[in-house]
């Protein structure tokens, strides 16, 4: 392993993050607060409790997942798209690094940023509602795996994208709807029966359900299935990236 390269890539990506640390910190704080004002206060006053949890607390895991997923994707996709766009990718292609090292450096940094934002949101939310975490170990595991797998997915999007529009396309057209419809703000038991079935095709449901279970001990789908889903997604993305580097798809002519 070329650890010097892994650390060079990781540090350089994180430096970019720290250049705009204030922004990175303030925007999730503000958006989380807004969610609490809108959902927690306005809607929450009408919905008393969901599965024995106050509505304000109920949405916290979903809120964290929502931001972590979108941030992991946007950070990772931009992180690799940018060097392609400005041409500095030449250095990465001519360096003695393999796919695993590039993934550790770039995806690792993107996942770290997403994790940071997740933690900031959890902190902000705890100012509004009382949060208890029943399974802290599982909570951390779910959070880490989500950061990692969505950063991997973002990395693939960044390599696939050939312009800025395409870079925005997948997150906008696929991820945002899946996340919003994935039970971030409701329990799927609140849906009409037919939608309860359809929604099970949405992979995000499994992640949010599992994550929420680690907080409150209640889940929409069995927690083992949630873990399996996210592990499977991570493996799938890793496989795709391995193939990309082997064939040079979209990066090496």
């Amino acid at each position, binding site marked *: 392993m070329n650890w010097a390269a892994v650390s060079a890539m990781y*540090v350089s990506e994180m430096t970019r993050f720290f250049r705009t640390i204030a922004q990175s910190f303030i925007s999730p704080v503000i958006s989380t607060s807004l969610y609490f004002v809108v959902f927690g206060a306005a809607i929450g006053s009408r919905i008393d409790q969901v599965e024995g949890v106050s509505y304000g607390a109920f949405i916290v895991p979903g809120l964290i997942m929502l931001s972590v997923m979108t941030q992991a994707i946007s950070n990772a996709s931009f992180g690799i798209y940018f060097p392609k766009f400005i041409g500095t990718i030449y250095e990465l292609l001519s360096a*003695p690094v*393999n796919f695993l090292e590039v993934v550790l450096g770039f995806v690792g940094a993107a996942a770290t940023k997403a994790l940071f934002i997740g933690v900031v949101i959890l902190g902000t939310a705890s100012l509004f509602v009382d949060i208890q975490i029943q399974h802290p170990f599982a909570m951390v595991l779910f959070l880490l795996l989500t950061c990692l797998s969505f950063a991997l997915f973002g990395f693939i999007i960044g390599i696939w994208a050939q312009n800025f529009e395409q870079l925005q396309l997948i997150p906008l057209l696929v991820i945002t709807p899946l996340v919003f419809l994935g039970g971030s703000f409701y329990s799927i038991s609140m849906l009409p029966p037919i939608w309860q079935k359809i929604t099970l095709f949405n992979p995000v449901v499994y992640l949010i359900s599992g994550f929420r279970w680690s907080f409150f001990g209640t889940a929409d789908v069995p927690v083992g299935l949630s873990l399996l889903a996210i592990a499977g997604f991570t493996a799938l993305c890793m496989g795709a990236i391995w193939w990309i580097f082997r064939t040079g798809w979209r990066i*090496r*002519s």
Partner: protein
Amino acid sequence: MTAIVDIRDLRKVYDGGFEALKGITLSIREGEILALLGPNGAGKTTLISTICGITNPSSGEVTVGGFDVVEQYRGARSLIGLVPQEMSLEPFTKVKDAVSYSRGLFGKPRDDAAIDKILKQLSLWDKRNARVVELSGGMKRRVLIAKALSHEPKVLFLDEPTAGVDVELRKDMWDVVAELKAQGVTIILTTHYIEEAEAIADRVGVINGGQLLLVEEKDALMRRLGQKTLQIELQEPTQAIPETLAGYDLELVSEGQALRYTYDTRGESTGITRLLGDLSAAGLQMRDLLTEQSSLEDIFVGLVKEGAA
């Protein structure tokens, strides 16, 4: 001397079907400076990119330091430093961070003293804390060179390093190149400036249309292909070339003060002895003789034309 870069029947067909390299075979010796000359679109950058791992070869083999560039890319790439033709740099990175980054990427442990030395050598020391966007074009070029040198490569590729560079930087650059050569680094550079190849290269390769037209010792190349001129200064100016000398390739210059004779050093004989005899016979008295070798430029233009014909 052993070959540090060995290229065998290398072909590159781009996705669109364009064949940019049509079977290049070339051995680059350890420690030499090889200049690659060729017009725009000849395939110089493609050749370098394929050796460095930026593009995949379509067929053929390349080894660097004995490592196959595809199968044993780690070994091969660790030995290579590349200064690309395009000026691609991260705009908001500090100069010294950009250079350190490259060192790390190539697997070398962090070494601030080594980076400082390179920055000083390339006159970037004053700008070490500046961000790349704040630099002029020539300074960015220096940063690219510093990045390529950051991991102490054994083989350095310079793809048109002097395009858009002022005289001073060019001089700095050749000083650096000379120093690297003294350390045993092999240097491959592409250029459109033939004087450059002439001034610093040990060998010259000419590429056109994806083919290597020739590779030769610079001196030998100039001897072998060079046309020479012999300038004959006369005691008394003459109005016209005497009839008896019509068979020679002669030209009247300096308002009749001198005759210029052009001959091919490749020919069986240069005809000089005979010419000098005939000159005396025609009653022309010689004051001085001067020979001049034609430049690489002339050779180059001649070769490319020949290849196109």
